[in-house]
């Protein structure tokens, strides 16, 4: 049982939760995630460990309430308990000193990006951070990321904050200007965003690292449900990742697999049609 210490809504449907998990707080490194199961009968879902406080024995999760499990988790009040949290899982981010790094976050992916960006900055990289959202309300962690970024750029689809458009707009400018051209790009967000960023950096030959978010169960390599194809090879995102070279990822397959259970809900009986 893991006690919820605090729970605040930092953007619409986006919660920052601090939870008692002393063993994980002590062991956790940037880039790792935990598997969370709210109560008996609930699903196990992966959530990035955004921050830790080993002294207090707590971890921070930043959770976007997109569906059944995440909505139930963010409804847990301080003082209440989460039944199971297992972690830290996945490979920690390989924090390298690249020089100039652009970090790109989209939607809840910005929460996943946050610990990586912090680690990269602490290692001495010069960070430019681009955060995208549908509108102002959905641009998250701007101040937190600005604290260690040389420059922070927000983009919104409706222009209500920062630049109007997608994260790829400012990224292109940075790539084109020799004074700002990054040595590496980290991108975390919805699959189409990571794909667009990777497609954009490829002709520039800029190393691009993405953090993949397939459906998971155990998070320990036991089920293979999280498999992704990277560079033509099958990898288990929970143990071989979640970070991979963005230029090698089969995004179409990832996007398809992520939608599997939604499609099942919609048409319970695919084969009837296929065999008819």
């Amino acid at each position, binding site marked *: 049982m893991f006690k919820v210490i605090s729970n605040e809504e930092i953007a619409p449907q986006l919660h920052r939760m601090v939870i008692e998990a002393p063993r994980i707080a002590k062991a956790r490194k940037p880039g790792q995630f935990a598997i969370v199961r709210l109560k008996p*009968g*609930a*699903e196990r879902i992966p959530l990035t460990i955004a921050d830790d406080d080993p002294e207090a024995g707590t971890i921070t999760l930043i959770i976007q309430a997109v569906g059944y499990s995440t909505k139930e988790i963010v409804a847990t009040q301080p003082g209440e308990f989460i039944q199971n949290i297992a972690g830290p899982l996945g490979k920690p981010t390989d924090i390298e000193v690249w020089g100039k790094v652009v970090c790109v976050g989209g939607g809840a992916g910005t929460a996943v990006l946050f610990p990586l960006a912090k680690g990269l900055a602490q290692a001495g990289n010069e960070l430019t951070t681009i955060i995208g959202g549908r509108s102002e309300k959905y641009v998250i962690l701007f101040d937190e990321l600005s604290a260690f970024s040389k420059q922070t750029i927000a983009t919104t689809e409706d222009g209500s904050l920062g630049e109007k458009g997608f994260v790829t707009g400012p990224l292109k400018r940075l790539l084109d200007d020799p004074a700002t051209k990054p040595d590496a790009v980290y991108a975390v967000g919805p699959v189409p965003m990571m794909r667009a960023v990777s497609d954009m950096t490829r002709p520039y030959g800029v190393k691009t690292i993405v953090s993949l978010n397939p459906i998971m169960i155990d998070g320990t390599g036991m*089920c*293979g449900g999280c498999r992704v194809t990277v560079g033509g090879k099958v990898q288990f995102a929970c*143990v071989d990742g979640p970070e991979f070279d963005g230029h090698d990822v089969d995004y179409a397959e990832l996007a398809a697999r992520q939608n599997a259970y939604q499609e099942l809900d919609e048409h319970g009986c695919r084969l009837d049609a296929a065999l008819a």
Partner: protein
Amino acid sequence: MAEISVKEKMAIERTKMPEQDALERSRNFKEVNLGLPLEWAVREAQRCLACKKRPCVDGCPVNVHIPEFLAKLADGDVAGAAQILRVDNALPATTGRVCPQEYQCEGQCLRGKKGQSVAIGWLERFVADWAAQNLAPDKAPAAQTGFRVAVIGSGPGGLTAAGELARAGHKVRVFEALHDTGGVLRYGIPEFRLPKRIVDQEVQNLRELGVEIETDVIVGRTLTLSEIREEYDAVFVANGAGLPMFLHVPGENLKGVYSANEYLTRANLMGAWMDDPCGTPIARGKRVVVFGGGNVAMDSVRTAKRLGADAAIIAYRRGKDEMPARKEEVKHAEEEGIEFHLLVAPLEILGDEKGWVRAVKLQKMELGEPDASGRRRPVAVEGSEFELACDVAVVALGTTANPLLTAAEPDLKLDKWGNILADENQSTSIPGVFAGGDIVRGGATVILAMGDGKCAAQSISEFLKGKTPKAPEKAA
């Protein structure tokens, strides 16, 4: 009780096992075998000739005193039978259900040479179930040694070791990666073959013995083996062989294609079969093809049937006689209407425009010369490819060692498959660290994991003799 003559014994026919009707059970998850009534069990035990050579004992991987427990049972002394069984086998209710008896004790039984062997497995199950109902579980011994022992993994290996260590007076803590106990007994073997109340009861018995169980601890991630060694006087590693193998054919990442581990975990551990609205989903196929011929394949295909498949199909490379699954499971599967495509090998998994599996492409095989395992090697028949329509495909090829724990411990010696090297006392290359079960043997059996756990517990007590406990209050 009056002596029964050999002639009388020989005249008794092997008992039948009462079971759920095949059609009915193929639509529910309740246990298939209903268990023997007392009179039947006693009568069956009386079939044992108490022969001198005791081949059944040699056939048992842990040498259970079979003729002795059968003799007690034949006399109607079930409690006496239970006591004998208990000495050699910590999990008789489980092994009575899942051991491949036809290759082990029953396979060697003298009565089987001419007719049918004594139904040792069913009798073991009977005695164990009776004991669970009627005998009080052990309590922790009054004299505690002060030593703390960590057990990693709560499968049959870990559970057995934990029980034996606690009975020896050590303080035991089990670390389990998943949110629930039992290992394969929980997430792999389905309810219809091994009801989870049996695993629950084993775990409850351990708690009564004072064993502490901490779930959600992934050793190698949450804690390392080295950290555990600093706090505990000895460690038993039984983390199983949890890594699923895939076919490595095109189309394996299509939607609707599962490893057996994922398929069974969704169904069993996560309870997808229970129709809980907040629970884990599973693709309930109308036509499900399962690759493999072992217990894992049988469990998957029979689960598919119970999840509502019209056609649940086994596709296996060799012939029926070569299938490594327990014979009883194959028989039950056939009765339940499982279809068998034998001597076929998968070439490709084919998808529809939305990325869902729609068929598997198979090639016919014929049996050639025997290979190293003594089984005849399947050879592809040219030009025999065909498609088999399906909307779910399950790959049940077996599992290998998961490196999560071992990768963090360079001092722990492994074999070339990544299994931990352990000697006949279950000692590893690190003093005070013992290992057993599937992580040492590769995918093996429940009884062997159980035997390793028991042996390791004895070795650990031996190892601790004459040592002083590390500060017990400091232990994590």
